[in-house]
C-alpha cells in the first residue's frame, strides 16, 4: 500500500504541545486549566483513533516536517506498531489526567500548572516516538521526552527529588548521547539511510561483529527500557507524584524505551539479519538476567511504589526478551505485552496512589487490613496484578502465553525455565500485598476513618482494571495490529 500524506499524525503530536500554552495561561484558574487538559486529551485520543481504521486496512500515513540531513528528513509515519503504542499512550493519558485531578488536589500539591504543562509536552513527545518514521525522528522525540519529564520527576523540589533528578538525567541522557547517538551515526554511515524498513536496513551491509556492537549500544542506549545495569533511574524516579509514576514510569517513558528497541530490532537491524548473525541469544540473555534479578529485588522492597518499579523493570525485560526470540510468536508476545502490561501496571500504580491519598501510607508493611476499607481499590489491584503475572482471564495472559509458546517453538529450554520462574516470582511479590490487605487484620485503632480515595482517583483505576479484563476477551484489534507490525 502506498503511504498516504496526511497532516493528522502531526496534529496528534501538536495538539498537546500547543495545548501546553492555554494550560499555562490558565495558571490561576485551576478548573479551567484542568478542563483544557481533559479537552486536549480527548481531542488527541480522537485523532489517534481516527487513524486506526486506515491502519487496520494496511494504510500508512506519512508527513514530512523538515528536510534536515540527506536521506533522513524529520518525518512521521503511522504504521501498525506505532499505532499500538499511540493508542495505549493516548487512551491512558486521558485516564491519568482525570486521576491527576483527584490526586494533586487531594494532596494540595504545589506548582500544578507546571505539572500539567510538562505532562502535555511529555505526551506529545511520546506520540512523536510512536509516529516517528525514521530513527533520527525517533531520537529527537525520545530526547524531548527525557527533558520534558525532568520537571515532573523532580516535582517535589526537595533534596531527594534533586538527587533523583540527577540520577534520571545521568542514566537517560548519558546513555542516549553516549551510546544510542554513536550507534545511530554508525548505522547511518553504513546503511546510508535511517528509515524504518520492515526487515531492517543493514542486511548484507554489516559484519556480525559490528551488528553485535550495535545491538549492545542500542539496547543500553535506550535506557528508558531499564535493562540492567542501566535500570537505576526507575526506582529513583519513584519520588515523583504517583500519576507521573503511573503514566510515565509505567507506560509512556519506559515503553518509549522498549518501543525504540522494537524499532531497532524489527526495522533497523532486522530479525533475519540478527538471526543469521546468531545475535538473538545475546538479546535474550541480557533480558533474562534483568528479568530474574529485577523480580527478585522486587520481593525485597517494602515501599509499594519501589516494588512496582522493580516489577516494571522485570516486565520490560519480558518485552525485550520476546523481541529477542526473533520468532514470529515470541515477537508477537513481546509486542502484545507492551500493551497488556501498560493497562495492568497503570492500574497498580493508580491503586498505590489511591492508597497514599486515602491513608498516607507508602510501605507494604503498614498496609494490613486496608483492603477491607478500600475494597474497590484492592479489587482493581488484584485484577492488575493477575494481568501482570499473566493469569487468565486477564490480558496479560495472552502476551505471556505467546512468549511461552515462542520459547517452546524455538526449543529454548533455558527461556522456558526463566519465564516460569519469573511468573512464580511475580506472584510472590504481588500476592502478599493483597493477602495483607484482606486477611491480616489492622492493628487496633490503625486505619480508622480511612475510606476510598476521591472519585477522580477511583474511577480511572476501576476503568483501567476493567480494560485489562476486557482485553482478554477482545484482544483482536491489538493482535491484528501486532501481526501487521510483524508482517505475519
Amino acid at each position, binding site marked *: 500500500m502506498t503511504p498516504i500524506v496526511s497532516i493528522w499524525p502531526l496534529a496528534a503530536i501538536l495538539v498537546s504541545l500547543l495545548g501546553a500554552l492555554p494550560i499555562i495561561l490558565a495558571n490561576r484558574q485551576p478548573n479551567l486549566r484542568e478542563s483544557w487538559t481533559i479537552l486536549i486529551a480527548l481531542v488527541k485520543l480522537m485523532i489517534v483513533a481516527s487513524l486506526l481504521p486506515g491502519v487496520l486496512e494496511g494504510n500508512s500515513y506519512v508527513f514530512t516536517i523538515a*528536510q534536515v*540531513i540527506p536521506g533522513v528528513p*524529520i518525518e512521521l509515519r503511522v504504521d501498525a506498531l506505532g499505532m499500538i503504542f499511540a493508542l495505549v499512550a493516548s487512551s491512558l493519558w486521558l485516564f491519568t489526567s482525570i486521576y491527576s485531578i483527584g490526586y494533586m488536589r487531594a494532596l494540595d500539591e504545589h506548582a500544578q500548572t507546571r505539572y500539567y504543562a510538562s505532562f502535555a509536552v511529555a505526551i506529545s513527545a511520546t506520540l512523536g516516538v510512536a509516529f516517528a518514521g525514521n530513527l533520527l525522528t525517533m531520537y529527537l522525540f525520545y530526547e524531548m521526552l527525557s527533558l520534558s519529564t525532568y520537571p515532573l520527576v523532580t516535582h517535589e*523540589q526537595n533534596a531527594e527529588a*534533586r538527587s533523583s533528578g540527577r540520577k534520571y538525567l545521568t542514566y537517560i541522557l*548519558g546513555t542516549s548521547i*553516549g551510546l544510542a*547517538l554513536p550507534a545511530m551515526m*554508525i548505522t547511518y*554511515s553504513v546503511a546510508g539511510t535511517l528509515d524504518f524498513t520492515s526487515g531492517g536496513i543493514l542486511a548484507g551491509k554489516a559484519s556480525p561483529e559490528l551488528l553485535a556492537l550495535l545491538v549492545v549500544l542500542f539496547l543500553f542506549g535506550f535506557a528508558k527500557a531499564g535493562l540492567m545495569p542501566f535500570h537505576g533511574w526507575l526506582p529513583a524516579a519513584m519520588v515523583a507524584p504517583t500519576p507521573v509514576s503511573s503514566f510515565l514510569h509505567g507506560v509512556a517513558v519506559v515503553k518509549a524505551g522498549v518501543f525504540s528497541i522494537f524499532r531497532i530490532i524489527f526495522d533497523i537491524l532486522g530479525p533475519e539479519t540478527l538471526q543469521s548473525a546468531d545475535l538473538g541469544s545475546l538479546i535474550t540473555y541480557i533480558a533474562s538476567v534483568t528479568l530474574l534479578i529485577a523480580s527478585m529485588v522486587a520481593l525485597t522492597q517494602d515501599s509499594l511504589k519501589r516494588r512496582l518499579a522493580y516489577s516494571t523493570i522485570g516486565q520490560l525485560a519480558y518485552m525485550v526478551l520476546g523481541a529477542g526470540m526473533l520468532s514470529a510468536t515470541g515477537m508477537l508476545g513481546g509486542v502484545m505485552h507492551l500493551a497488556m502490561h501498560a493497562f495492568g501496571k497503570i492500574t497498580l500504580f493508580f491503586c498505590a496512589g489511591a492508597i497514599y491519598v486515602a491513608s498516607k501510607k507508602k510501605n507494604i508493611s503498614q498496609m494490613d487490613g486496608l483492603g477491607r476499607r478500600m475494597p474497590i481499590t484492592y479489587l482493581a489491584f488484584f485484577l492488575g496484578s493477575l494481568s501482570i503475572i499473566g493469569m487468565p482471564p486477564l490480558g496479560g495472559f495472552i502476551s505471556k502465553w505467546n512468549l511461552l509458546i515462542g520459547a517452546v517453538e524455538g526449543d529454548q529450554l533455558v527461556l522456558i525455565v526463566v519465564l516460569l520462574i519469573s511468573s512464580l516470582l511475580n506472584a510472590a511479590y504481588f500476592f502478599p500485598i493483597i493477602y495483607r490487605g484482606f486477611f491480616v487484620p489492622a492493628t487496633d485503632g490503625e486505619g480508622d476513618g480511612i475510606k476510598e480515595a476521591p472519585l477522580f482517583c477511583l474511577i480511572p483505576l476501576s476503568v483501567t482494571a476493567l480494560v485489562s479484563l476486557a482485553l482478554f476477551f477482545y484482544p483482536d484489534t491489538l493482535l491484528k495490529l501486532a501481526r501487521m507490525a510483524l508482517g505475519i
Partner: protein
Amino acid sequence: MKSNLHMYVMAAPLLTAFLVNIFGRNNRKVIAPMVLGALGLSSLLAIAVLKRTLMLGDLSYTAGAWTPPWGIELLVDPLSALMLLLIAAVSFIATFAALPCVKRDLEDRQHLFFTLYLILIAGLMGLVLTADAFNLYVMLEITSITTYGLIALGRGRAPLSSFNYIIMGSVAASFYLLGVGYLYLLTGTLNMADIARYLPALQGTAALSTALAFILIGLWIKMAFFPLHGWLPRAYTDAPDGAGVLIAPLMTKVTIYLMVRLMLTFQSPTFPLISMDVRTLVIWAAAIGIVCASSLALAQRNLKQMLTYIIIAEVGYMVGGAWLANDQGMTGTLLHIVNDALMTLCLFLAAVAIAYRTGSLHFDNLKGLYRRMPWTMAFFTIGAFAMIGVPPTCGFYSKWYLLLGGIEAGQWEFVVALIFSSLVNAVLFFRIIELAYFGSLQDSEHHAHASAEPQEAPWWILSPLALTAVLLIVVGLSTGPLVNNIIRLMIPVGF
C-alpha cells in the same frame, strides 16, 4: 560578475561609526536609531547579496577599479554571503541588548563605545569579503584593535585582560604577516586565488611550509585554538556586557571561517595542503583541546567564564572538523560556524539578562532563577539544549555532520572527544538548570513568601534573546536547504 552591492553592507556600519562619534557626542538619543538603522540596513542588504549570489554566482568589487591581482578585490560567493548575513544579523540582534547595558555601564562614553563597536563589525565584514591576503591582515588588525579597546572599557581588571589579549593578538598578527610576507616573496602576489595558482609548483619547499605554518599558527592564536587559548577566558569575561554579546559569538567564528577559506582556496588535487601527518596532528590537538576545555569549563563557578571555556571547546570542534578533510567534516564545520554563533549569542544574551537583574553571574546567584526570570531562563534552556546537541535545535545537526566526518575518516579520537564534550555540556548546563530550578533547599519550607516576584530583564534584552532562541530551532529545521543550497556548493568535489 561585477557588483558593488556587498560593498554597501560593509560601508553602512563603517560610515555610521564616524557619524555616531560626531553626532552622538552631544545628543545621546541619536545613537540607538543610528546604530540600529545602519545594522538593520546592513542585514537587509546582506539578504539581497545572498539572494543575488545564489542566482548569479560570485560578485566582485575592485577597490578604485584597479584590476586584481594588483588591486584589492572584494569577492563574495554564496558562502561568504552567508557569513556576511550571519555577521550583520548577529550584530543587529546583539545591539538591542548592548544598548541598555552600555547606557548603564558607560553613561558618558556611549558614542565612543559604539564607534569602536561599528568599526569592529565593518572589520568582520571586511574579513569575509576580501580576496587579498594582505588586506586580510589589515582587516584582522582592525577587528583586533577595536576589540582590545572594547574589552578595556570593562570594569575591574578588564584593562589587564585586554593587555594580555593585546600581547597574544600582536604575536598572532606578526605570525600571520610573516607568513604572508613569505608567500609574497615566493609567489609575487597577494591575491589569494592568484597565490593558489602558484602553489603546486612550490610544493615541498621549506619556505612554503614555513609560510603556511606561520599563517595557520597566527590564525589559531586569534581563534583561541587549544593550547593557544590562554587569553580568551579573561578577556571575554571582563569585557563590558554590551561588547561581550557581539565579540563572543562572532570573533572566533569569523577567524575559523578564514582558516577554512584559506584551506579551500589553497587546497587542490595537485596541491594537497592537508598532508596526512599534519592532519592527524591537528585532529589530535583538536580532540585534546575539546576534552581539556570541556573539563576546564567544569571547574568554573561563574556562568560567563564557563561559557568562555565552552567557546574554546567549540573551536576544537570546528578546527578538527575542517582538518578531517572530508565532505562531511567540512560541512559540519561550516554549519557549526553558523550554529555556534547563534548558540553563543543566545547564551550570552541570557547571561547579560541575568547579570542585568542580579548583578553577578556567580553560580550562587543563579538559585531560584526560574521563578524570578521565567522567560529568560526558558530561552536560556533552549540555548543550553542546542549546546548539548539536543534535536531539533541546530546544535544537533552540525554535531551530526562532524561526528559523521570523524567516523568516515576513521578519526575515532575526534568522535570520542565530541561525545565526551556533549556529555560534559549536559552536566554543565543541567548543573545550572538545577540551581535555577531548585533554588536554595534550606529555605524551601518558607519558599511561599520568600519567593521574589518575577523580575524579568528589560524588553530590550529579552526580545533579542527570544528571537535568537527561536532562530536556534528554525535554523535547525532548515539545515537541509542550508547545506544543499549553500554549503555543499562551496566544497570542491573530492575534497
